[in-house]
């Protein structure tokens, strides 16, 4: 430890509890109540990092969330280390370890610092201009950028901390616990409203709580004493919830807000154990009071970024709140009265303030008079033209400003100092107001954007300095006046407050302060985190950028993790000055949530581990697991994919299953197919309108395949629907389409055809479906349901019977998706697994073979049956699929009918479904492979692609389905499937490969 920079003062810091911590491996001490930044300053450490682009030494600049420079890595545990943390917001705890970022090999010797000397080569847009070309070099550039930029390190192991979410509903939410927030909270609580007050600090009272100065009095007490009493008194309201260490992250519409509460980040490792680290509050507030205050602006002058240069108000907080001297010989540079408050505080604590450089010509406020009385030297109408000192400021050069403020005149004065405070005025924190949809207006007199109350979302109000009220008396009067209207209050406890304060008498604002050197030879930093200077803004304007949003991206101004909280206003000001635009007309860039970065942990809360999405399993799932099934995900469903035996590969298993299903019997769990129960006197008419084919004449007990289109004529879904009774149908849909089909049908029923008497109920989960196919399927079903007459005459293909298995009702359909003689048993899901096992036992003698979705796909491809979503992609009409037979030509209307003869849908060169056979029958095509006719004509014209492809064990050759331009007319044509290392010759065929006469359905 070098010099002790701590003064004896115990209001906020407990100097009896010493805390040890490490910074870059060096063991240091601080006190309970310190932030990492205040403890470092107390140890005379300003230099904490290197800047992003030029690797210039950078020091602590602020005391809050706007900090651009003092960005550190906390901890080095691979599961909990946290990068990009602002040292100004880290509460000190025993054992804290922090590291500088963005410097290699160390903060004191940084190789990237050479960029500082190369800086004429690194202007705005440098990365865009340099690293764009040639594209093949990008990997090399990326390595260079990453190595030298070196933002913090992400944790490499899973986060072991606990995070939580909590909902809160309240009458009034107050954001910000400064004086205006406290006044608002008290008024709301006094009225009996259910109130929440949040503040990101670990104490309440904002900057007023340490404003101990007789220039600022409320009811004859200094403002801090008066406010302290008010805060102590808040405990008496049971209807007021106060949340400290809670920062508002996002303000969404309808007063829905997200706030993150830090619960353990200020505790040492032992105290943290088994506690929730952070809680994300999801708050729905009837009314919101934004009292987020304002932040001090820097001044933009040559070399304004050296370690030891801080915001003037931060120097004041470090001395008044933390009892830490930011230096031993301090100069202040200002354009307003705030720096004078700092000077008074420093003087009171015995710190030498050697000069105040004020760009104004004069001021006669209470504060200024008090400083003059103390005897501090004030240089009116002067500016700093340069600063000296590499790792810490050593001196400043000062010159008189010309009358127009655009140049400097007279002799250059050198002033030694080890710390410089700067104050460029105050910027209201309007981020949350704009996030919520509010629009800003420019207040010329104060050079600030403030909420435009005429363009504010309802049920919210901004009060205090975030609303542009900077003087204590205005702030209090306006806050009370506005809150009374907002909360509909009559008389309040604050109606006769007596407020005395110093009032600012003069204003002068210069966005970019001149130097004795040309602008091109200077470094007036604007965005300290992203290292962009006023020069970059001017260059961007010269290169033709006009929109503030474009200038921002080109120069990266305001694009750091601080979102340019400090200097966005200066960027705007310089653009306005350079282009001769009114600032109010320029507008601001958009402030997006989160206000300060959020951890991923707080966003996900307890939703870690398994996906939150449902996993749907059929009633027979356990049997599949026990029998070694491999599963595939179909939507939310786990479907048995194939059942390998004795180390079979997937190919071997599917070949065996496919052969067995056609030779003996196969059994498939088809329970995932969507099932919609349709009832009502208009059920038949309804089906007529939603399917392409006719339904009125379907007899009771019969089944029919239907194709459903979108209104644009494209195939949407398909499935078999059975007429159970006069006014009762059961529709099946694809597995993936079930929910969407139901929603779509509901939509039509409720909105287009409310006159139809039809009711839809999903029964997908209630019924399970066991499909048994193959030449021996009849024998098996006979054994299970002996009473059922399975003769073709009684129970032909495409019909259905009500039946019973052991007294349990079931529906048996004779329908087929494989082309084989087959049955589907639909039974209440509770009984499904037992019935499945029964089928397996009954089928044993017929070599019944369980098969999964892959075999199902293969078998239907042999028959040329489509799978919507695999062979179709929302761009194919029934005609494109060669399914013209299913269009009810005589039907007046159905969903999508009119689109079937739009000029585009009747084109003959549309992509159409065809079959493909490979020249080499053993060659299996890749699904998705392209089809071309002439491989030598460049550019090669792509005619279509393969949609389904398998090796058929029943045909002993490779088969495929494809969509090909004008495919219908191309039967017999030879095409080429070009692959990475060979060209495969194929011939276009019919889509049906197996049993073209459909003999097996009745086999």
């Amino acid at each position, binding site marked *: 430890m070098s010099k002790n920079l701590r003064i004896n003062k115990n209001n906020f810091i407990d100097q009896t509890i010493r805390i040890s911590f490490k910074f870059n491996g060096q063991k240091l001490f601080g006190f309970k109540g310190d932030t990492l930044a205040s403890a470092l300053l107390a140890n005379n450490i300003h230099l904490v990092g290197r800047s992003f682009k030029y690797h210039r030494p950078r020091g602590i600049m602020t005391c809050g969330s706007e900090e651009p420079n003092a960005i550190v890595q906390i901890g080095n545990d691979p599961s909990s280390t946290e990068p990009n943390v602002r040292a100004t917001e880290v509460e000190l705890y025993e054992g804290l370890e922090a590291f500088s970022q963005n410097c290699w090999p160390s903060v004191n010797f940084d190789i990237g610092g050479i960029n500082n000397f190369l800086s004429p080569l690194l202007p705005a847009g440098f990365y865009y201009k340099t690293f764009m070309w040639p594209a093949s070099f990008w990997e090399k550039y990326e390595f260079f950028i990453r190595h030298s930029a070196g933002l913090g390190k992400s944790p490499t192991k899973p986060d072991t901390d606990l995070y939580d979410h909590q909902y809160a509903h309240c009458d009034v939410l107050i954001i910000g616990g400064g004086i205006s927030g406290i006044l608002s909270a008290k008024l709301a609580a006094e009225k009996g409203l259910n109130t929440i007050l949040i503040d990101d600090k670990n104490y309440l009272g904002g900057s007023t709580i340490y404003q101990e100065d007789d220039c600022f009095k409320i009811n004859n007490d200094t403002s801090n004493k008066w406010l302290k009493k008010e805060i102590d008194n808040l405990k008496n309201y049971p209807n007021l919830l106060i949340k400290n260490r809670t920062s508002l992250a996002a303000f969404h*519409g*309808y007063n829905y807000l997200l706030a993150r509460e830090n619960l353990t980040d200020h505790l040492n490792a032992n105290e943290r154990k088994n506690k929730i680290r952070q809680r994300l509050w999801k708050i729905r507030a009837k009314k919101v009071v934004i009292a987020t205050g304002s932040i001090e602006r820097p001044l933009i002058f040559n070399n304004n970024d050296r370690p030891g240069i801080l915001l003037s108000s931060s120097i004041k907080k470090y001395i008044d709140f933390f009892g830490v001297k930011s230096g031993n010989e301090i100069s202040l540079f200002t354009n307003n009265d705030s720096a004078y408050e700092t000077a008074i505080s420093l003087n009171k604590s015995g710190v030498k303030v050697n000069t105040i450089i004020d760009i104004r010509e004069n001021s006669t406020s209470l504060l200024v008079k008090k400083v003059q009385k103390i005897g501090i030297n004030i240089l009116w109408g002067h500016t700093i033209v340069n600063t000296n000192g590499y790792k810490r400021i050593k001196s400043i050069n000062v010159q008189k400003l010309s009358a127009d403020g655009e140049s400097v005149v007279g002799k250059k004065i050198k002033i030694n100092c080890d710390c410089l405070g700067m104050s460029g005025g105050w910027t209201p924190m309007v981020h949350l107001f704009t996030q919520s*949809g509010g629009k800003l207006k420019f207040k010329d007199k104060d050079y600030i954007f403030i909420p435009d109350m005429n363009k504010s979302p309802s049920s919210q109000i901004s009060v205090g300095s975030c609303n542009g009220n900077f003087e204590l008396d205005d702030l209090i009067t306006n806050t009370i006046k506005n809150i009374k209207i907002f909360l509909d209050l009559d008389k309040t406890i604050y109606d006769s407050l007596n407020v005395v304060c110093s009032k600012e008498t003069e204003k002068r604002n210069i966005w970019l302060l001149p130097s004795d050197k040309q602008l091109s030879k200077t470094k007036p930093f604007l965005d300290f985190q992203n290292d962009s200077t006023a020069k970059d803004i001017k260059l961007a304007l010269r290169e033709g950028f006009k929109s503030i949003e474009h200038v921002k991206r080109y120069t990266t101004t305001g694009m750091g993790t601080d979102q340019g909280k400090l200097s966005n206003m200066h960027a705007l000001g310089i653009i306005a000055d350079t282009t001769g635009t009114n600032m109010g007309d320029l507008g601001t860039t958009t402030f997006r949530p989160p206000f300060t970065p959020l951890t991923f942990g707080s966003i996900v809360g307890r939703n870690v581990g398994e996906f939150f999405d449902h996993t749907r399993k059929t009633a027979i799932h356990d049997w599949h697991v026990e029998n070694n099934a491999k599963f595939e995900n179909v939507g939310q469903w786990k479907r048995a994919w194939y059942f390998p035996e004795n180390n079979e590969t997937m190919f071997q298993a599917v070949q065996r299953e496919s052969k067995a299903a056609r030779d003996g019997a196969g059994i498939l769990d088809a329970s995932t197919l969507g099932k919609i129960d349709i009832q009502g006197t208009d059920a038949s008419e309804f089906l007529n309108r939603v399917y392409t084919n006719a339904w009125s004449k379907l007899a009771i007990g019969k089944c029919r395949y239907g194709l459903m289109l979108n209104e644009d004529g494209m195939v949407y879904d398909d499935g078999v629907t059975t007429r159970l009774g006069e006014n009762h149908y059961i529709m099946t849909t694809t597995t993936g389409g079930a929910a969407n089909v139901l929603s779509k049908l509901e*939509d039509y029923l*409720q*909105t287009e055809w409310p006159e139809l008497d039809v009711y839809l109920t999903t029964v997908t989960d209630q019924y399970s479906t066991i499909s048994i196919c193959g030449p021996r399927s009849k024998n098996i079903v006979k054994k299970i349901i002996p009473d059922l007459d399975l003769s073709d005459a009684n129970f032909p293909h495409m019909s259905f019977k009500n039946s019973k298995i052991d007294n349990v009702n079931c529906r048996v359909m004779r329908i087929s998706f494989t082309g084989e003689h087959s049955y589907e048993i639909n039974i209440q899901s509770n009984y499904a697994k037992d019935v499945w096992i029964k089928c397996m036992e009954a089928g044993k003698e017929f070599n019944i073979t369980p098969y999964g979705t892959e075999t199902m796909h293969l078998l239907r491809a042999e028959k040329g049956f489509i799978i919507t979503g695999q062979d179709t992609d929302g761009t194919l009409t029934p005609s494109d699929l060669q399914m013209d037979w299913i269009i009810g030509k005589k039907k007046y*209307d159905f969903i999508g009918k*009119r*689109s079937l003869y*739009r000029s585009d849908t009747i084109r003959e060169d549309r992509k159409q479904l065809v079959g493909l056979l490979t020249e080499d029958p053993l060659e299996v095509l890749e699904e998705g492979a392209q089809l071309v006719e002439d491989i030598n004509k460049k550019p090669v014209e792509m005619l279509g692609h393969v949609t389904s492809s398998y090796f058929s064990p029943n045909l002993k050759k490779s088969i495929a389905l494809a969509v090909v331009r004008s495919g219908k007319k191309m039967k017999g044509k030879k095409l080429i499937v070009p692959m990475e290392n060979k060209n495969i010759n194929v011939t276009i065929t019919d889509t049906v490969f197996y049993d073209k006469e459909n003999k097996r359905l009745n086999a």
Partner: protein
Amino acid sequence: MFIINCPYCGERDQSEFSCGGEAHIERPKQPTELSDDQWAEYLFMRKNIKGIQFERWNHAHGCRKWFNVVRDTSNDKIHAIYKMGERPPLK
């Protein structure tokens, strides 16, 4: 994240609902009598207004009923909600 007052269930979070786009686009009663252009007008053309828009909404994770909402798309303010088939409030 706005709140929608379902005419059947009451106020619920927006996440329970899905938006079905512009309202009062009636499916033509006799599509076959329309020209390609007229059918395309029904099928494809939507106003997508910035400002007051009449929309269809569905309480998808609730009662599954469709209804109409008059919403200002620039700030999500809801000006009216009425059931299917009811007369829209005058603009």
